[in-house]
């Protein structure tokens, strides 16, 4: 028994020695995640303290769950919570079906050059930063001199203050997501459609099914499992609404509909210096997010498809 252990240990050492250059290669990457990913996880301790920068983690006073209690009792929490759910609900109901519809339509294009051109154009916005996406919509939708309000005016409608009205925050948010991501989102569905057995279409043609009917009755059901898996994974990401995107749209007039966990952490932590409280908020979000992602992956795997992680 002890002999066995010794030889195992010996072979492990031998294998490490044999691959010492490989470990050397991984070392910088490992050092990077230890310093910038794992030490911050250790730093979550400050959410249970009254962290003072000059006292450090070791010297700061322990307060237990005080910051968490403060968060749950704060009216801000319910505002953030409902904003998160509403924005996510909009994504699910309005954004999510669009890439599926576009992919099915793209699949029906018979001219390859035409198809490639459309794909090239609709993938493009995905590579633009949120700053550019938001900037473009600002100059287009702005009250004075924006093309949209100019059109409304010349058509005899009254101008709409898209950027300053809190009623327009949610439509703008979802519109920008659709513009930036809907094209790129088709890729995974197109791949799924490419795997559909062509014989199914032949059989449908024999039965006299129209092309539209084939789309509804063959293509859509064939990619149903991919749609469901992506839907589950999407639900796992409910808290990931995009810090940059929301922060760029946030202002004092729309805060009550726009504030989400990430922006709240930034404002209360970085701008107001409440390190411990904002860390607690981030910790809560990260922890719930982890559970949701693991749950979603487990569900997706159970559904019979391979999850992302």
């Amino acid at each position, binding site marked *: 028994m002890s002999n066995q252990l010794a030889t195992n240990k010996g072979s492990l050492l031998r*294998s490490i020695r044999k*691959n010492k*250059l*490989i*470990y050397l*290669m*991984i070392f*910088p*990457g490992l050092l*990077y995640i230890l*310093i*910038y*990913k794992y030490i*911050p*996880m*250790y*730093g*979550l301790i*400050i959410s249970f303290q009254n962290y003072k920068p000059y006292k450090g983690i070791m010297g700061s006073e322990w307060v237990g769950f005080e910051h968490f209690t403060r968060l749950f009792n704060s009216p801000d929490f319910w505002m953030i919570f409902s904003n998160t759910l509403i924005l996510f609900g909009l994504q699910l109901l309005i954004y999510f079906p669009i890439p599926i519809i576009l992919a099915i339509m793209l699949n*029906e*294009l018979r001219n390859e050059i035409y198809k490639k051109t*459309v794909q090239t*154009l609709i*993938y493009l916005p995905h*590579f*633009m*930063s*949120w*700053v*550019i996406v*938001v*900037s*473009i919509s*600002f*100059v*287009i939708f702005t009250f004075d*001199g924006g*093309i949209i309000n100019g059109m409304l005016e010349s058509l005899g409608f009254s101008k709409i203050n898209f950027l300053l009205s809190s009623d327009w925050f949610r439509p703008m948010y979802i519109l920008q997501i659709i*513009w930036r991501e809907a094209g790129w989102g088709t890729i995974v569905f197109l*791949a799924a459609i490419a795997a559909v057995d062509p014989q199914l279409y032949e059989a449908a*043609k024999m039965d006299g099914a129209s092309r*539209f009917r084939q789309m509804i009755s063959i293509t859509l059901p064939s990619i149903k499992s991919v749609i469901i898996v992506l839907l589950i994974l999407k639900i796992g990401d409910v808290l990931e609404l995009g810090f*940059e995107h929301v922060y760029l749209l*946030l*202002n004092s*007039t729309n805060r009550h509909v726009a504030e989400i966990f990430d922006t709240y952490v930034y404002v209360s*932590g*970085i*701008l107001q210096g409440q*390190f411990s409280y*904002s*860390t607690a908020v981030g*910790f809560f*979000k*990260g*922890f719930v997010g982890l559970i949701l*992602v693991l749950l979603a992956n487990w569900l997706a795997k159970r559904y019979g498809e*391979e999850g*992302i*992680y």
Partner: protein
Amino acid sequence: MVGDKSWGSRIFSFTNGLLLAIVALVTVLPFIHVFASSFATAGELAAKKFLLVPTTFTFDAYKYIFSTSTLPRALFVSIFVTVVGTVWSMLISSLTAYGLSRKDLAGRNTLMFLFVFTMLFSGGMIPTFLVVQETGLLNSYLSLIVPVSINVFNMIILRTFFQGLPDGLEESGKIDGCNDFGILLRIVIPCSMPAIATISLFYAVTYWNTYMHAILYLSDAAKWPVQVLLRQIIVLASGLNYDSAVYTDTPPPSQSVKMAVIVVATLPVLVVYPFLQKHFAKGALLGSIKS
């Protein structure tokens, strides 16, 4: 091909093609409008609306934005961060990816788990900020690079690609007397150029688009990359701001100046896009399916 030439099928094809053309048009129209407006005179933009072609072309907006050092400096920062960041991230990512792709490595699964877990959970904004501060990177350009050295998702795509190379390649390298570094440099990387190119471009676009880290870690306005400057010019000029940082160098910029800054910030991505486009769909799928 029964029924493919029927009237119903033709009408379907036409309608479908037309709808997709409209979708593509709606996607690119904002770009074209912004591009065209950047060449319009301020007077025309204020007085009458046009979508695509201004009546008089002028480079005034571009002359104006390049007349002070603010924008050229921000562009220089962005170019520097993009070039240095991409080289650095590719170096450290391909080393890690190759190491983790070796099937004979003891502890490989544990190491892999350490990397994958960082995609699922993180210490969050504030603890990361404190570490960046402790490591002395605040207000340094390195704060935009070092804390995001590896994008684990990109690293996994590279690793998957390396794993797909035939084992014989490494064997032949060993027979020729190469050590592991030699194999990576002379055999694995030259055989993986499509993946290396795709991931480099992914990194480059990410570095060019960097915004959040800049507002978190750079308090000195002279160090801002172009994305932060753009945001200050566009969003804050409308009088809406959440924080107190205000862009004070110039009076509220005219509409055509805003358009010109957007064009300048967008152009580099548009230039690399055709190269990116050749590979990215494959790369994106590889990452989402195989990992």
